[in-house]
Every structure is written in C-alpha cells, then in structure tokens.
C-alpha cells in the first residue's frame, strides 16, 4: 500500500466512524460516550484531511486554494481504481 493509499484509508476510517457514530447520535443525541467518540474521530479526520490535501490534492472542491491552476479536475478519479 502506497503512502497516499495509506493516508486515504485512515481518512476513510475516521470518516466512517463519524458517520456511523452520527447515525447513532441521531437517535441518542445526549449519549456522552458517543458524543466523545464522535469528537475524537472528527479531530483525527480534520488533521488527516489537512495532511492528505497538502500532499495529494483536495478531496472537496470547496478546499481548492490554488491560484495558478484548477487541479480539482486532475486524474485519478475515485472510480478508476488507481492509487486513490
């Protein structure tokens, strides 16, 4: 596994943790343990995304901050099964 794939896999794990914990919180909005679990995953997610995007390009168009070229369009796109 390349370091890009490694980093993206970490992001996926934190993302999935947030999403699933969020679903639980939708029906248990005051659960302290779940709230804490979500917060911890979000901290890791934000850190990992920042690091990934600085090296390999943005994951969302809203994070584009390149004034020279619109790299959002750059290959590979996720469904192509390349190293992403």
């Amino acid at each position: 596994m390349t370091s890009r794939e490694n980093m993206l896999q970490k992001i996926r794990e934190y993302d999935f943790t947030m999403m699933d914990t969020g679903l639980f919180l939708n029906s248990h909005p005051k659960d302290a343990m779940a709230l804490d679990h979500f917060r911890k995953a979000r901290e890791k997610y934000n850190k990992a995304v920042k690091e990934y995007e600085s090296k390999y390009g943005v994951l969302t168009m809203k994070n584009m901050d390149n004034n020279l070229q619109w790299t959002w369009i750059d290959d590979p796109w996720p469904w192509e099964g390349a190293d992403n």
Partner: protein
Amino acid sequence: MWGYEKKLQYPVKIKNPDPVAAKIIMTQLGGPDGEMGAAARYLNQRYTMPYKECKAILTDIGTEELAHQEMIAAIVYQLTRNLTPEQIKRDGFDAYFVDHTTGIFPQSASGLPFSTAAIQCKGDAITDLFEDLAADAMAL
C-alpha cells in the same frame, strides 16, 4: 444540498474483467432493492417524517446510499474495462453491450431498467419505515 468528496467510501480495485459478475452486481445499483432505490426511498420519504430523529436518519442514510451507488458503479465499471470482443460474446455480455456498450446503465440483473415502481413513499411514518425494512432485508 450536497457536496462531492473525491474518494470512495471503500476502495475498489479490480484487476481482471468479469462481465458475468458485472451483470449480477449491477442489480445492486439499479435493481428493485439497489442503492438507487434506497437513496430515492430515504431522501424522498424524509419530507413527511414528523420526528427530528427520523428526519436526520433518513437524510444521513439517504446520503450514504449515494456513496454506495458510487462504489457499486465503480465495481461494474472496473469489471467491464478492457473487454475483448471474444469476452463480450462468450460471457453473454453482448445483449447489454449492444444497447449501452460499457456505459453504466442502472438496471436489475434481469435487464429491467431502474424503476421507482419498486419503491414506495406513502407520507406515513410507520408505513414508510416498514417499507424501508422490507427493502433493506435484501439490500446491503
């Protein structure tokens, strides 16, 4: 509204084409209990949902189904990449190919195009949730 994240929810990397598997897996995208149906169910049922917990859940799982669509479509796309004319004929992919080439056309395994006839939206919380349970007993 929605935004796109340039990643799959789980990576899809398929080396060898397999059009027979692709035709079966396609039903998980556009079949009666596929991801498109699931997203259409949840995201349209939420408007008449009276409870905030359920509005949130239908919104969030409906959104997640969109990410599932992308993974299934990626699987079908990669399973039908670089097919030879011999493979297309030998593996029975010719009937699909003549209409769509290797485009991703959402349909069931038997070739029925994606249809909202397989889903329901009744505007009643309990009825809609039961319908979701029935569909999810088959969907992944």
